[in-house]
């Protein structure tokens, strides 16, 4: 199983961890759209990071929760996940 975070997985985590419904296609189409516009803040990103840490059994350093766009967040998380691989 790939460890890389995809937009599908992100959309599903957004729903379960933060209660925000988001079409993965929209994330993919506009990865630089501000997360703030859909109400996703650092607490929400931390909730997602925490869930990813449990799924992958790794620790993700501070940083991704400060990202402002889905593209940056996915990139930052994947950097941590692949470094740990």
């Amino acid at each position: 199983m790939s460890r890389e975070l995809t937009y599908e997985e992100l959309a599903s985590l957004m729903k379960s961890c933060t209660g925000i419904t988001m079409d993965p296609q929209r994330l993919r189409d506009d990865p630089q759209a501000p997360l703030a516009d859909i109400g996703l803040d650092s607490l929400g990103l931390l909730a997602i990071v925490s869930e990813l840490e449990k799924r992958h059994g790794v620790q993700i350093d501070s940083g991704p929760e400060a990202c402002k766009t889905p593209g940056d967040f996915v990139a930052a998380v994947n950097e941590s996940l692949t470094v740990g691989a």
Partner: protein
Amino acid sequence: MTRRVAVTGVGVVAPGGVGVPAFWDMLTAGRTATRGITLFDPAGFRSRIAAECDFDAAAFGLSPQEVARADRYVQFAMVAADEAIRDSGLEPGAQDPWRTGVSLGTAVGGTTRLEHDYVRVSGEGERWDVDHRRAGPFLERAFTPSVLASAVAERFGVHGAVQTVSTGCTSGLDAIGYAFQAIEEDLADVYIAGASDSPISPITVACFDAIRATSPNNDDPEHASRPFDARRDGFVMGEGAAVLVLEELEHARARGVDPYCEISGFATFGNAYHMTGLTREGLEMSMAIDTALDHARIASCDIDYVNAHGSGTKQNDRHETAAVKRSLGEHAYRTPMSSIKSMVGHSLGAIGAIEVAACTLAMARGVVPPTANYEDPDPECDLDYVPKTAREARLRRVLSVGSGFGGFQSAVVMSRDGGRSR
């Protein structure tokens, strides 16, 4: 004619020292009370350090019945209130109990005992429909935060307005601010005002772990609380209480009491920004400072000392530095500004009151408490943070500020003209 509000009594229960003498010793020595958590086994938590009170309720005169009935945070408040009342020289029954009020703050109230009993009734989290037969006695008192003000009011026979205030980490400043306003508006002559919290329990430690707000510097707890330092990495949780006796100035003079100082201004605003986040600019805290100064009719350039919120998170210290600079202008660079959280940790709702108590003592004794652990300057925090060593200074106008989850931004202004040193 404006009614003025004097501080005539102080009581403190703080990590590293219960009672005013021990508390003051610690602050002026720049000693830190942060250590590995002993109140529960912190294995498995991200942050395993805290500033704990070595508190023996019986040694401070609480009966076994009182100890059984009162949560730890209520016990702290009772002991701090005892000391404050004693210090003020007020005799129970000597003033009108209907003109005496209580205003006490707490951020998380009885959560520590709520969690303790939860573990029993739920079989360690096994069931949602918990078993009420396994609940301990007085659990309703842990559930009900108004117990805090109520317990202190009962202890001293108070019959005026009695209120628990809970505005997160500004609870202490706000509880004192509300009491100040009530005396000023002639709703009361005397208030027992302050705050208390005992949040060092697994659930509260875990919730701050989850947002990475607390310091993970578990290997060096004594140096973990580093407000304004470039290497700061979060706050260190604390616990404790401080209670002040506030009194209408003529009321105090009539009984021949020389007050410590006066509370002369208070304001609070919301930042309407984020439940936990703070802006870079600190506009709303600055507005609270400006409004409190206006209220006190004090010019910003007359401020001699700023007691900072200084929690030691990246965001807070930068936010607060910006706010103070916005309000004090160039004068900010000439004004000492320190955070006692470097020594006593961040006791959530209680800390605002503990900080006002520290300001009261600092004014009366002419000493600015330092910011312990301050070593490496952060370019975004470029004020005089009084590193490590206390400093003698004549303090006539002092400002204490705070920020709380939920966006609360509060400021208290204190004044001292003459008065005896105590």
